């Protein structure tokens, strides 16, 4: 297994000024006839962070903040409009475009949110989890070995993977609809682990699951991280879950990273007004009766974001500068933060 004890000085994943813009203009004919302008959505706008080996970085935010787009940029499902993603020092965008990406793809995999849509309903589990093994030629059986032997070897390997996520070896012959949501998510994890990757991008892996099932899946993910030295990028909107699994937390709003800090620092001393608002908005299950600032407004339309700092319409501390000038992501007091108020010492 990959050694978890290697203390590399260089982070495994580095993202610098990453941006992705989508063209959502109306079709050409409509634009000409109705005189509509071209429209763009800056789904990800200048995001930078680094993830060290064996650690978990969580990205949180509400709908439209771009965290899922960041996830897809990292695994090559989208190509960045601007900026750079490095994996182990290598530029991923160039590799994905070159068509020679198999060795890179082996080292990073993804887990998705919807357990019902992440598995092909017509395929058996053996084929679903076996696909990465086949694609990368990871199962013994080349040259001279009959395909029957190869199929059996594949099934044995798939059964091993299923056992490692807490399922039964006999499940290889079943179809996805025979499993519950939590079990399907575990099959997705088994598929992601088939190539023995070093980096897993997890896009809201437990958001569609019941609470007790979520606990099972989160525990498995933590166990696997410890055993195999995996590095995680964990996307979620649920701050309590994030607090449980992450080492570092990044908060995103309308495509921009507004705060990035160690878990303890972020939850005990949130600095950015949006982070504070998010933490205040979480329903308090223990009803400790802490005082909370009421939440104002809603997430604006990404097609028409506010000028300057995109949070200013909802921010209790906004001033003129906030309306005009976009705050840069800076290192202040040991955290990364994009806020004029914090920079100026007002907050």
């Amino acid at each position, binding site marked *: 297994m990959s050694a978890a004890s290697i203390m590399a000085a260089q982070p495994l994943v580095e993202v610098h000024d990453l941006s992705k813009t989508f063209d959502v203009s109306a079709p050409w004919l409509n634009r000409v006839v109705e005189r509509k302008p071209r429209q763009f959505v800056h789904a990800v706008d200048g995001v930078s962070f680094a993830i060290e080996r064996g650690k978990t970085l969580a990205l949180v935010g509400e709908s439209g903040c771009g965290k899922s787009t960041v996830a897809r940029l990292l695994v090559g499902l989208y190509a960045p409009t601007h900026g750079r993603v490095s994996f182990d020092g290598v530029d991923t965008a160039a590799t994905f475009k070159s068509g020679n990406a198999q060795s890179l793809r082996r080292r990073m995999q993804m887990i998705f949110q919807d357990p019902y849509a992440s598995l092909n309903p017509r395929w058996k589990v053996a084929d679903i989890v076996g696909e990465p093994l086949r694609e990368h030629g990871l199962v013994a059986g080349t040259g001279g070995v009959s395909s029957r032997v190869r199929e059996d070897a594949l099934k044995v390997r798939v059964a091993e993977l299923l056992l490692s996520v807490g399922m039964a070896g006999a499940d290889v012959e079943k179809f996805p609809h025979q499993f519950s949501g939590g079990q399907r998510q575990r099959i997705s994890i088994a598929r992601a682990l088939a190539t023995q990757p070093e980096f897993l991008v997890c896009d809201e892996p437990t958001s569609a699951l*019941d609470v*007790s099932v979520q606990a*099972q899946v989160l525990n498995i993910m933590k166990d696997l991280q410890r055993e195999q030295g995996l590095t995680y990028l964990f996307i979620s*909107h649920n701050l309590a879950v994030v607090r449980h699994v992450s080492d570092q937390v990044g908060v995103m709003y309308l495509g921009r990273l507004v705060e990035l800090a160690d878990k303890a620092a972020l939850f005990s001393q949130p600095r950015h007004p949006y982070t504070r608002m998010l933490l205040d908005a979480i*329903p308090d299950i223990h009803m400790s009766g802490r005082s909370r600032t009421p939440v104002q407004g*809603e997430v604006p339309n990404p097609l028409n974001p506010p000028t300057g700092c995109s949070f200013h319409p909802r921010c209790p501390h906004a001033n003129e500068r906030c309306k005009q000038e976009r705050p840069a992501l800076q290192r202040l007091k040991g955290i990364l933060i994009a806020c004029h108020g914090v920079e100026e010492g007002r907050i």
Partner: protein
Amino acid sequence: MPAPLLEVKNLRVEFPTRHGTLVALDDISFDIAPGEILGVVGESGAGKSLTGSAIIGLLDPPGRVASGEIRFDGRRIDNLPYEEMRKVRGRQIGAIFQDPLTSLNPLYTIGRQLVETIQTHLPVNAAEARQRAIRLLQETGIPAAEARIDQYPHQFSGGMRQRVVIALALAAEPKLIVADEPTTALDVSIQAQIISLLKRLCKEHGAAVMLVTHDMGVIAETCDRVAVMYAGRIAEIGPVHDVIHSPAHPYTVGLMGSIPAMDDERERLLQIDGAMPRLTAIPKGCAFNPRCPRVFERCRSERPDLIDAGNTRAACWLHAADTKAAA
């Protein structure tokens, strides 16, 4: 002790299928007092949404109420003919569903939908109905209500739409509102706004609420009492503070333990092994017995009723008088 507004007694909902009859709700009983907020919490397949549907009389066929009764204000409503139930729905019982997109008709202005609801159930003319509608929109926090009343649903954002849906539910001054996952489809910051709005408005209008959700945090913030459902049965019911902080049923204990909380320092979450049984394979005796860490012989053969257990009532033999006496 005022008479309960809603009484559900031994309600049983069945679905006849070609595999046999599925019992989706098995002999559940609970009350809601006037003005009270009762939370119904459970995981997928526990039957909480079905309970709400059964009460408003909107069970999807072939589901049907097989036995038991539902009484509203002393009057039986589970066996009413369609027309009678239609009058009860809206006037006495209002409903809020999960998806604000589909709860509003996209082809009509929200003003028209509000006025239509008001006029169906209250004896007012069109002008007064419109005034009431504007007032309701203002109460639910929609800015510039006078202008926005003539807009269409697609011109509102998700959170705004849910506010309109709440306004619609309150339009005919019902005594009970059944809210099925009203905040699940919304962002966290909007959730908080909608929860506090719902709580405040229902107190002001004197409406009781049956809040169905899987989110324990929402329950903690809003409800007075909570019923925890498992496999079509009620596992535990009691005041919200007691159920959360000193749960009596092992399932509730497991549920509370598996929720990561903001002040949590545990390395591993408490996990209940296995999964909720499918409706076709509910175990004999207590439905939770295969997964229960404190199971004993009686649990596997006899199904427990709700038994007093401290401040709550739990369907668990651990709290039966003879079990405690023997211990």
